[in-house]
C-alpha cells in the first residue's frame, strides 16, 4: 500500500505512528484538517490484524470527522487516534499515562476525548500527563449526558429526519429497528428508541454480555445471532459496530428502508453502494448524524449551557432533512450531498481565515 497515496485520497496531511513497548502502547494519529480549529480526535482501541488496516482506519475516520465537524459547524478540526490492541487487555494506568505524554507532543493541535473506548477512569489517567483532554466529570453533571448518550440522541434526531423523508411520519413510534452491535452507543440508541410507543427492536452483538445487559432491562427486545441480523425485516437498520464495513453479501440480505450507522461510513466499496441503491434503501451515512459527542465537547471547550447543547443536537434533524432534500433535488447520494456541503463550508471558512 502506498501510504502517501492513501493520505492524498483522504486529504490527510499528517499521519503519526507511536510505539512505547514498555507499556505495549501502539498508537496511530491521523490529522485531516484544522481549518475549523484544533482536532477533536475520535479514539478507537481495536485489535487490528495488521497496521496497514489500522492506518487505513485512522485515515478514514479522520477524513469523515472533518466533514462531520463542518456539517455541524463546530470549531473542531478532523482527526483520529487508533490504539492497537485488545481493549480488555491493553489498558492500564501506565498505558494511558504514556498516551497522555504522547498527546502532549502535539502541543494542543489535537485533543483526546472520552468516548466508547475511553472511560471516565481512563481519561483521568491521561489527564495526569496532558491538559489536552476533553470529557470532564463536570460536563456530565451539567448536561446529564455522556458522550455516547449525546451521540445516540443526535442519531435519533437524524433518524427522525430520515423517517420524515421516507414515511412522512414525525416520530419513530410503531417502527421496527435493527441494532447491530449494542456496545455503549448502540445501548443508548436502544434506550432512546424505547421512549417511542410500540417500537420493535431487534438486536445482536458478537459479545453476549452486552445483549444480556439490555435484556435484563428490556426483556421485550428480540435477540438474534450475529449471522442472522442482516436478514431481519425492519424499517431502519442501525449498525453500531466498528470492526467491519458492510459487504456486498450483507447488503444483499438487507430488508430495510433506511440504513445508517454509528461509525462514520459503513459502506466503502462501490459494489455495496450499488446494491444499496438498487434495493432503494436510503443510506444516511453515520457521520451525518453521529456528531452528538462533538457538540457536547464543544460546549466543554468553548463553554455553553445545556439548552444550547440540546438545541444543537436538534439541529442534526434539520441538517439531515436538508441533505436529504439536496440529494433528491440533485439526484445524488446523501453521502455526496453531505461531502459537497461540508467541503463548501470548509472552503468558505478557509477563505475568511486568509483575511487575517
Amino acid at each position: 500500500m502506498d501510504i502517501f497515496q492513501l493520505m492524498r485520497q483522504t486529504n490527510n496531511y499528517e499521519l503519526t505512528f507511536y510505539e512505547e513497548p514498555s507499556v505495549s502502547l501502539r498508537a496511530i494519529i491521523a490529522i485531516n484538517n484544522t481549518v475549523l480549529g484544533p482536532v477533536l480526535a475520535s479514539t478507537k482501541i481495536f485489535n487490528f490484524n495488521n497496521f496497514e488496516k489500522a492506518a487505513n482506519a485512522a485515515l478514514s475516520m479522520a477524513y469523515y470527522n472533518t466533514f462531520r465537524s463542518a456539517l455541524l459547524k463546530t470549531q473542531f478540526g478532523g482527526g483520529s487516534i487508533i490504539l492497537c490492541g485488545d481493549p480488555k487487555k491493553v489498558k492500564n494506568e501506565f498505558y494511558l499515562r504514556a498516551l497522555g505524554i504522547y498527546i502532549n507532543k502535539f502541543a494542543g493541535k489535537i485533543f483526546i476525548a472520552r468516548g466508547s473506548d475511553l472511560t471516565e477512569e481512563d481519561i483521568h489517567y491521561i489527564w495526569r500527563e496532558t491538559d489536552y483532554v476533553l470529557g470532564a466529570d463536570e460536563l456530565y453533571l451539567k448536561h446529564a449526558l455522556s458522550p455516547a448518550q449525546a451521540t445516540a440522541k443526535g442519531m435519533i434526531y437524524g433518524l427522525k429526519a430520515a423517517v420524515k423523508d421516507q414515511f412522512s411520519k414525525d416520530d419513530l413510534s410503531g417502527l421496527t429497528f435493527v441494532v447491530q452491535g449494542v456496545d455503549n452507543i448502540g445501548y443508548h440508541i436502544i434506550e432512546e428508541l424505547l421512549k417511542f410507543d410500540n417500537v420493535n427492536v431487534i438486536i445482536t452483538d458478537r459479545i453476549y454480555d452486552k445483549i444480556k445487559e439490555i435484556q435484563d432491562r428490556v426483556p421485550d427486545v428480540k435477540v438474534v445471532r450475529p449471522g442472522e441480523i442482516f436478514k431481519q425485516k425492519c424499517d431502519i437498520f442501525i449498525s453500531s459496530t466498528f470492526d467491519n464495513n458492510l459487504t456486498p453479501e450483507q447488503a444483499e440480505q438487507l430488508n430495510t428502508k433506511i440504513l445508517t450507522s454509528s461509525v462514520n461510513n459503513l459502506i466503502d466499496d462501490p459494489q455495496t453502494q450499488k446494491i444499496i441503491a438498487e434495493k432503494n434503501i436510503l443510506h444516511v451515512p453515520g457521520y451525518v448524524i453521529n456528531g452528538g459527542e462533538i457538540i457536547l465537547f464543544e460546549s466543554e471547550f468553548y463553554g455553553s449551557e445545556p439548552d444550547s447543547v440540546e438545541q444543537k443536537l436538534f439541529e442534526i434533524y434539520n441538517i439531515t432533512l436538508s441533505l436529504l432534500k439536496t440529494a433528491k433535488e440533485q439526484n445524488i447520494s446523501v453521502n455526496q450531498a453531505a461531502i459537497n456541503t461540508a467541503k463548501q463550508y470548509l472552503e468558505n471558512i478557509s477563505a475568511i481565515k486568509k483575511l487575517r
Partner: protein
Amino acid sequence: MKKKFNILAINPGSTSTKIAWFENEKKIFEKNIHHSAKSLEKFNTIWEQYSFRKNEVVRTLEEAGFDLSKLDAVVGRGGLIRPIPSGVYVVDEQMIHDARIAYQGQHASNLGCVIAYSIAWEYNIPAYIVDPPAVDDFEPLARISGHAKIPRTSLFHALNIFATARKFASDHKKRFEDLNLIVAHLGGGITVAALKNGKAINVNNGIEEGPFTPERSGNLPILKIIDLAFSGQYTKDQLKKMFVGKGGLVSYFGTNSALEVENMVKAGAERYKLVYEAMAYQIAEEIGARSTNLKGKVDAIIITGGLAHSQMFTDWIKERVEHIAPVYIYPGAQEMEALAAGALRVLRGQEPAKRYGVKTPKIGILYWDNIEAYVKAINYIEDYFRTHGYIFRKENSNLEIFYANCEADETKARQNLENLISKNVDLIIVIGSTASSLAAQYLKNSDIPLIFAGLYSKDVLSGIDWSKEPKFYASVYGLPVDLQFEKTILKLDPQIKRIGVTYKIGELQSNIEHDRIREYCSQKGIKCLSFDVQTHDDLQEAAKFFEAEDVDWVYLGSDTIIATATTKQLETITKHFPTLCALQDTVHHGGLVAYHVSWQEVAELAANFAVKILNGLEIKTHILSPQNHYITANQNTAKLFNFDFSKLENVNFVS
C-alpha cells in the same frame, strides 16, 4: 476414529462455581471456584452475579491454558425454571428469561444456563442444560396436595438423581428406562424420587417438602406455621429464611455441617443423636412413601449425595427400608460428569436435545409425488430420526412430522408450504429437485430452515445465491457426468460413437443434466441425440428415434418420467440398447448400469442436517453429497449385451 468433543460444564452453587473441561467422557480439568461472602454481598440478586461469575470462569480457564475456541458445547446446570420433563435442553431466550425472573425461585443454578449460553454464543456453539431442578415428570395423582389452591410442584436434585440412577443401571447391565428405582439425594437439601421407567413420577419438593435437612425444615405442622406467620414477630422473608437456610440441623445446633453433628454424636451427645437420627428416620419415611408410589415394585433403593459418605447415617436409613428393596450407596454427587454426559449424548446423536418451552419439535416433509424413490427417502429419513432417539406417531412422541404430497402440482405445492408454515414447523425437508426448486423460491425470505433432500445439484435452485441463504441446506445425488461415463461406458465400450439421451423439457434438473451430457459428449467426440419424454408413452417413440439414429448407448436421465417408469415401460429401450442410468432404481427396472450414490445416504445426510438444526448444533457445510460412489448393474440385462463387466470396479449386480 471416534470424534473428540470438548465440553465445558458449569455448575454454579451458592458460594462457588464448579467448572470442568471434558474431552468426551474424560474429565481433564476441574476447579471449584470459591466466591467469598464479601465478593457476593454487593449483589442484590443471584442474577446480578452473572458477570462476576462468568468472568471468574473465563479467567480460570484461560489461566489454566484452555482455548475456549476449541469447545464443541457448553453445558450448565439448569435452574429453577418452569417445570419440564427430564432430559437435555438447548438453552434459548425463553429459558434465559425464566431464569432471569427466577420462575420458581432464586437459586445459584439459575446462572448455569446463562453463563453457558454466553460462552457458547461467542464461539457459535450450542449451550445445553441437563436435568435441571425444575424437572417435572409427576404423574397426575402426585400433583394433588390436599388443597385446591396449592398444587404440588416438582423441584429436586434431578441432575444427580438421574445420573446416579443411570450409573446404577449401567453397573447392573440394565436399561435405565426398564427399572423402578427410589433414589435419595442427601445433601444440603434432601430429595427422594420414585423413578418409574426413567421418569421421576413423584418426589418431595426440595425446598418445602419432605424430610428436614442440614439447613431446611421440610414438612412442618401447618397450623403452627400460621400462628408463627401471624405472630407479628417475623417478616415474610424472615420466615422463609427460618425454614429454608436456617431450618433443619441449623435450627437445632446452629450448624449446617452434618460432619460436625456426627462428631458430636460420636462423642456421646444424646440430643445430637436424637435429631441426627430423626433426619435419617424422616428420610426412611420418605423412601417408604415413594415405594407406595411404585406400588411396592421397587428394583433398588439408591442413596447418594454428600451425606451418603456417612455409614452411620446410611445404616440408620438402611435398617428401616431394606425390606422394600436392596439398598445401594453411591456417595457424593457426579453432577459435572452428568452434565458432560448429557451434552455428549446429544453431540453424538444418541439423544435428541429438547427445546425449552416447545412441547414437541415439528418438522414438515414435502415431496413432489408418490414416486417410489421419494417414498424410500421418507422411510430412510424416518429411520434416521428413530435411531437418533426421536419418537413420532406415538403417544410419547418427541417429534411431530407433517407429510405434504404435492401430487405433482405447483398450486398444491404452494398450498402445502402455506400449510406447513401455519403449523409453525421448525424446518422443512423437501424431497426431490422439482419440489425443492419451488420451495426455495417460495420460502426465500422465510426464517424456516429448508433442507433439500436429493437435489440433483445446487444449480437446480436457479437464482439462489447459497452464500446469502444461511437457512438452506442440501444433500446432493447428482454425480459429475465425466465420472459416470469414465467409470462405466468408457470401460465397457471405449469405441462408443453415438448416444441417445432422454430428458424432460420443463424439469430444471433434467435440463441441467441434459446440458452437462451434451457438453461432455461434445468434448469427447460422442454424438449426442436427445429425446424429450413428457409421458411414459413417449418412451416408445424415444426407442424408435434411437433405433433410427443407430445409437450405441442410451442415457436414461433422472427426470420424473424415467424415475416413475415401470420395468415394462422401460423395456422398449432397455432391451434394445445398453443403458447408462442416472438413478440406481432405473437399473432395478431393467437399466444396464449406473454409477451413483446411495439414495439412503442422500436421505440420511438430509436427516442429519435436520437433527443438527433441532439440537442447535452448528452446520459448517450446507451442501453435502455422499462420499461413497457405487456401480450397480442389472444381471439379466447384462446377458443381452456382450460387455465384459470385469473391467468395472466393484460392480454390484442386481436382478
